[in-house]
């Protein structure tokens, strides 16, 4: 659990750095996100006059929800301490409730930007979540379980082979991950333009330790999705439940390598594409939903596809 907490700012810093290098900039140092967190934690919290108690509580709820969800994903070994307690659907539910509270926080202060951000976020979520569930169904049907450890174990076994439905599912999952993490082309995490923001618009009113928690949650979420994709579709090197220290070391190195590859791919993708218009986002996510649906249907038609 601590591992994901410690690693997530590093991943965010890494993506930023790669993006900067691709644009021929030097970019901020890799450890900058940690420094940002330390700076924000030292600062006092400025609250809007009309902020309710909800506004103050929400950062903790979001952080707790995201952290638990992230901790449930097998990173370098399967058979986690808590994996009996929650499956993939629970992870989605945790993330969904975190988002629900974030949207509430955006509306709470009553600024127009917060409202715009929340409305856009909910619009995106209403399409991303069904797509995500479809992907889960596909995987569950293939692996015969919604437990992540079981799924990863099944994926590692030789029984899987090359399947069309899994191919569709991974594309859909990547699309959902981009939308959920507010990356280009759905949202721009680095923008300063209030009117184009989605995620940033909702957290405009936050400051100090509240903002630190929300930022950390966003980075955790990014790590979560990269880990999820790695665990489900590239589970190589994942140590089993009763692995020795050597296996664990291999698992750890493989995990870091997967994160790095994921980060580089994300940065490259974000560099070569411009942001899409807000009303193109439903089409983008609709495609993800359709891919997920198609993958599930294919499985019903034939178990071997």
């Amino acid at each position, binding site marked *: 659990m601590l591992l994901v907490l410690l690693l997530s700012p590093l991943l965010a810093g890494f993506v930023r750095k790669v*993006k900067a290098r*691709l*644009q*021929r*900039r030097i970019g901020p140092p890799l450890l900058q996100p940690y420094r940002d967190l330390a700076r924000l934690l030292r600062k006092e919290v400025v609250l809007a006059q009309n902020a309710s108690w909800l506004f103050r509580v929400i950062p903790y709820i979001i952080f707790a929800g995201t952290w638990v969800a992230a901790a449930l994903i097998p990173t370098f070994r399967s058979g986690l301490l808590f994996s009996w307690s929650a499956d993939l659907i629970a992870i989605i539910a945790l993330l969904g409730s975190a988002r629900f509270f974030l949207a509430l926080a955006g509306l709470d202060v009553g600024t*127009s*930007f917060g*409202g*715009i951000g929340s*409305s856009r976020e909910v619009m995106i979520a209403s399409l991303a979540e069904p797509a995500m569930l479809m992907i889960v169904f596909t995987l569950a049907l293939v692996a015969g379980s919604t437990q992540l450890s079981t799924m990863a174990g099944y994926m590692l076994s030789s029984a899987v082979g090359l399947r069309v439905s899994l191919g569709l599912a991974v594309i859909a999952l990547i699309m959902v991950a981009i939308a959920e993490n507010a990356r*280009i*082309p759905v949202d*721009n995490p*680095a*923008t*300063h*333009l*209030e*009117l*184009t923001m989605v995620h940033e618009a909702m957290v405009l009113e936050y400051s100090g330790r509240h903002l630190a928690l929300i930022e950390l949650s966003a980075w955790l979420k990014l790590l979560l999705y990269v880990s999820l994709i790695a665990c489900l579709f590239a589970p190589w090197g994942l140590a089993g439940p009763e692995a020795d220290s050597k296996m664990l070391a291999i698992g750890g190195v493989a995990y870091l390598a997967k994160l790095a590859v994921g980060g580089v791919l994300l940065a490259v993708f974000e*560099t*070569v*594409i*411009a*942001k*899409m*218009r*807000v*009303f*193109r986002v439903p089409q983008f996510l609709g495609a993800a939903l359709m891919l997920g649906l198609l993958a599930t249907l294919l499985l019903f038609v034939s178990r071997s596809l």
Partner: protein
Amino acid sequence: MATLIETLPHQRKADHHRPWPRLIVGAEGWRLATGYLATGHLTLLGLWGDGPIVHMAVLDQRDVAVLSYECKKGTFPSVSTAHPPAGRMERAVRDLNGLNAVGAPDTRPWLDLGFWETGRPLGKGCAATKPAPYKFLPAEGEGLHQVAVGPVHASIIEPGHFRLTCNGEHVVRLEQRFGWTHKGVESLMAGSSLNKAAQLAGRVSGDSTVAYAWAFAQAVEAARQMQVPPRAIYLRALMAELERLANHFGDIGAVCNDASFAIMHAHCGILRERTLRAAHACFSHRLMMDRIVPGGVSNDLAPEGLAQIRALLEDAKLKFPRLVELYDNTASLQDRTVTSGIVRAELARQYGAGGYVGRASGRGFDARRAFAYAPYDTLIFEVPVLNAGDVDARVWIRIREVEQSMALIEQIMARLPNGAIRTPLAGNGQVREGVGFAEAFRGDVMVWLRLAGDGRVERCHLRDASWFQWPLLEAAIEDNIVADFPLCNKSFNCSYSGHDL
């Protein structure tokens, strides 16, 4: 054939107003001119107050005239009733000079936000008044909500307030409000020496400092009927084209950055920086501020500067086409810029929009071509015109102008004559008036001034191209979505500082 301007009934022509005439008109001439503006036979170039007189500059093809109307009891017949582009200028005249436009449809203050120490600073002056709360234009309908942006923005752009009335994501109406960068330039100009006034003119809008200084110098030289040495003329053009190059590079990148395509921004930023460094090497100032002075230029070209410019041009010729290709071939970027923020050609013509805003909407006006001031009368260049009027067209006009500017710089360097760079100012001890134009990267800058006998500036008016471009942004954004507003705004890139004065 007599031009339309000459047929206007006028009481007399002002003495010593150069290079175009100034007609002193009565109510009849004023109304007739207003009618011609409304029918599109004349184009409005500016409207400003001068003591009890209100001046209006109009354009007829390539002829300019200044019409002067003496206000009795501080009122003049409103132009904006028939010709809306004059509306904001009339409101500014009232705020600054205290002259009221009779019958104007909009009587709200414009530049005076209620923070000034004295009201009507250019007129008689009065105690500052606390204005009534500003009433934004109403938009009624079910489900409409307002989004207020600015005047403090999240980035380091200038202050301006935008009130968007939206239905969900669709913009129903945009209303702008400016005045936060009002610095009282025209009040400071009055009574200042020519040197100080030239410096002030160069500080109206920092990114167009060369164009402002040039327009100011042209007005002074016209008023004093001075000859400028040929080398100074070419050096001025060199500075102006370098300034245009730097700003267009910056803008092309910035428009793409607002569509979150940061790589164009990074590469264009490099080109812009190289241009500024070349400018620094040539004229020992990155923005070339205070280098153009009435009578010539203050610094000669540094000998090593030409090599820097040549290196810049070679580099840009290599890299810029690849950037243009990248812009043209990125489908996701084209999807954002094509068909968003369309300015209709009729509006561009009615408002007399200059610069890339006008030229992207079919109005091919360029002060360098229309007034053919030296050295542009002998240089070969094209004025690109497109008809689409969207963000994409405004980017393409900039791209084409970058190419033209690079070709112009090469011509200037090849023809650069030797000789003096400055003629001493000739003071003839009499009141003289002059008008000057220069094409800034945004569009035409106009400077009108009256010099007193002792060589001081009595009254000077500077008009930025943005006066006629800002209102078009309000029209362009309608029916677009809220998230596209920053993109449209950046493609206009109007000046706040030049507008607020």
